[in-house]
């Protein structure tokens, strides 16, 4: 499915063409995506909604280049990333996308600053790690280990890590799943602001329907298929969210 905005703009950064994904989990075969087609414009803020097992994380992983489709194409900025070799995919992940995960996925033996530097060292000309930590409001906590940070602080470190590479695409998998209500709203506000300021294409995956209200476009998945894709003409401020 495509959005009228991206069609009109003729500026789709990300295009999924009949993407399917099947994988084996132990003795069980799971069809995570069934011939999904989708287009996302440059600078769009999109929320992918769906219950557990709907394929939303798999879709995110496809765009992030950390999973490959069983069939179909994933075109990002004109390049079919599904056809890239390992080296190409690594380079893509370094320079084109960044992830924010539900469980933060910080390296426990590195401090906040070091976790950010961990990503910065992979690219030439990264942003300044301290500056990025300041942007997320954690400059004073830069030398603390994850075990010394609250859930919200850990997620902000993860966001800083994602930003330090200055990627055009930001992929967030249930970024508020482990956070309390207030912190969650704060994080969502941070992510949306970062996307707007940096003109980044942001994809947020969540099962929380309320979160969809802050996006310009909402795509709903069920059982591996896109069942709805709608524009949101009046996206809410994250602080106005209630769930």
């Amino acid at each position, binding site marked *: 499915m495509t959005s009228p905005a991206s069609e009109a703009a003729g500026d789709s950064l990300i295009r999924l063409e009949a993407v399917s994904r099947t994988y084996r989990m132990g003795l069980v075969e799971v069809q995570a995506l069934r011939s999904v087609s989708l287009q996302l414009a440059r600078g769009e803020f999109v929320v992918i909604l769906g219950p557990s097992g709907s394929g939303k994380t798999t879709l995110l992983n496809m765009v992030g280049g950390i999973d490959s489709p069983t069939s179909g194409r994933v075109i990002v900025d004109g390049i079919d990333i599904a056809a890239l070799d*390992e080296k190409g995919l690594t380079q893509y*992940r370094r320079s084109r996308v960044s*992830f924010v995960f539900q469980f933060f*996925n910080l*390296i426990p033996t590195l401090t906040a600053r070091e976790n950010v530097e961990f990503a910065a060292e992979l690219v030439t000309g990264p942003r300044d790690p301290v500056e990025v930590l300041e942007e997320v409001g954690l400059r004073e906590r830069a030398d603390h280990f994850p075990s010394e940070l609250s859930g919200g602080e850990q997620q902000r470190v993860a966001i800083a890590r994602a930003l330090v590479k200055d990627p055009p695409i930001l992929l967030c998998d249930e970024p508020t799943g482990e956070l309390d209500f207030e912190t969650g709203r704060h994080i969502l506000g941070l992510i949306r602001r970062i996307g707007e300021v940096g003109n980044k294409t942001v994809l947020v995956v969540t099962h929380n329907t309320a979160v969809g209200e802050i996006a310009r476009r909402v795509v709903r998945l069920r059982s591996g298929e896109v069942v709805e894709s709608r524009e949101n003409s009046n996206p809410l401020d994250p602080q106005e969210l209630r769930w």
Partner: protein
Amino acid sequence: MSRVRRWFGAKLQRKLLRDLYSSRGLFLAVIVVVLLGVTFFEASFLGYRNLKSSYDYSYETLHFADLAVEVVQAPPDAVQALESIPGVRAVYGRVNTEVGLSLPGEEAKRVLARVISLPSGSRPPVNDVKVEKGRYFQEGETDALLAEKSFAEHHQLSPGDTLHLIFDGQELNLCLAGIVTSPEYIWPAKSRQELLVSPETFGVFFVPEQTAALLSGGPEVNEFCFLFEEQADEKAVVARIEEALAPYRVMATVTADEQPSNAALQMDLQEFGEMAEVFPVMFLLVGALATYILLTRIVHNQRPHIGLMRAVGYSRRQVLFHYVSFGLIIGVVGSVLGVVVGYLLSGVVTTLYVGMLGLPYTSTSMGWMEWLAIEEGLFLGILPCFVAGIIPALAASRIAPAEAMRLPPPPSGRKLLLERLFPFLKRLPSLWKLPLRNIFRNRRRSLYTVIGVALGVSLILVSAAFVDSIDYLLDLQFNHIQRYDAQISFAEPQPENMLGEVANWTETTVVEPVLQVPARLEYGGEAYSTLVVGLEPDSRLYGLYSLDGQAVMPSPGEILLSEGLQHTLDIEVGDALAVRSASAVEQLRVSGFVKQPMGTYGYVTLEQARDLVGGQPVLSGLMLDVKPGCLGSIREQAYQIPGTASVELTAESLDKVNELMGLLRVMMWVMVGFGAALSLAIVFTTVTVSVLGRRWEIATMRTLGESRGRIAAMLTIENLSLGLVGLLPGVGLGYGLAMLFFGLIESDMISFDLVVFTDTYLLATGLVVLIMLLSQLPGIRYLNRLNLARVAKEQAA
């Protein structure tokens, strides 16, 4: 340089170091195993090289003979003809005889003195001596002698002391000019048959040629010592020498390899070298296993991190190298420390050996072989850990990023084959059922635990088997074979009525004669020089046992041979053996082979032995059973007999042997400790990894109400079961290794029966139980302190 600095400063490297630190206990355990293995290798190999180098240097400096030939008698100028034999570089003719000797202040006591002639004023071209104290003979000096160092030290002799040689009813007083070491008596063996002789009964001395002529009753010599040219064909030269000396009746031909002291040292050295090869491999195998287990666990635990690394943009190669580095660090740290500690220990081992043996020269140079050994030690330590680490590292690098992010599927849970075969197992309470299922749940880890325990047990057993076998050997030799309390040896054969004289002493209860005749045993082109021992057919003081343990005694016309001779002469029961003495040649039927832990002899009836000395009714010694508390006075009385050369007390000989075996025993117990440490390290690793991996399920059990005690009991049952399973193959492997080592040191000089006492099996079992219990303590402590809420939250994450 900046690239290198960048690499070292990279966060991936920092993560590596901090991950190592956070599991430092586990890593340390594996590093210790690698360290022990490399230490063992370096200490053994470098110790071996140092000793070999020292022996070689001593032999070269003192012109140790390539060959010694004993003849009945030859003129001194026979040397000239021998010098011209192609292949002979140098030759020295000398007197080598045995007389009685009494010591200053102990004139009533006598020892058997081997007296060897040396030139005065100049050094012999072959078999020189090193003066440790005092001086060498001066030109024309005749009233001096030199004493071999070990004897002199035992009796606290000093230059200037007066010693008395007793021969042919005469006494000769000589001044001790110097204390020397000889390349022929570094190990002061009397003969290949008598390797362990007490300095209370035997010593080696050197006298000027003119003095030796007095002792032997003429200027004739009875032994020639040779040095060969570098490229000489030894066999051909020996044949020519024997041919040249045939007119003088060759009694024995002894090459350098056969020379008793050198043979004993080389046997010991060979064992050293073998230990350097075999034992370190066991440690390094366990080190590799432990590395593999540890890294597999780390990769499993760090799946989300691996997914993150790939998602952020780290390449497969970077992930691979990151996890390979864990194994490399274990290998490098363990090896480097092992090389250092091993090098230092080799110095200690060398010093101990040199001190114990009294080597004339020590050589510990670091040549290319030694540097090669150090490189080999590093290689041996690093390679197994690198290879073991590569497997889980490759797995880590190959995990698809998305797959790494997903929860791994739960391990397959199914009933065991054992439960299907033995249905009663299904009805076991969970206290027993869970440990049983856990053992088979991770079969590889259980197998590695069993292997680690088996290797450790085998090391314990092979070391303890040495000690048991030595104890058995000594018991057999000194309680069952040598049943006498004392043996009087005469310098020359004495008439048989000596028996009656001594039997009348109030201190004796039983007295038996013995006649030892130097002879050459010849069969099928092979020959062996030894002593043929004549015993009374119904001897109570000397026991002989067939190979299957039956008591046997020689019969007329027959000879019993020590078991080693069966192989040496390639001879069987029923074969006819030629026994050649100085006076006669007898053809005797081999009636059997007897157990002989120390030495190699032939046994005949007393009458048969007398035939070998021309039919004279003589004896060379008397075996005595003595009333309690009378040993001292027996010795004094024995020395009153004019022909007495020495009086051996069995208890004293046993003490001396135990003293010599002391260092070996200590080394074996150190090895037992090593074996226990090896098992402890691997079991600690596998148990801790297992506990850490199961903390979620254990937290769940605790949440459900299971007590700490029962959880600890389940863990104990699981570990003890694995330990006991490892015990059986460990015992088998240890037994096999012991047989391998015993086979290496088996020779005509010493013959070990591999014996393992029941106590030793109990010791091994007890140690395994202790190791399993100790190694699980940190894990149990960790489980007891689990924060149940936090673990449950982690599990949800």
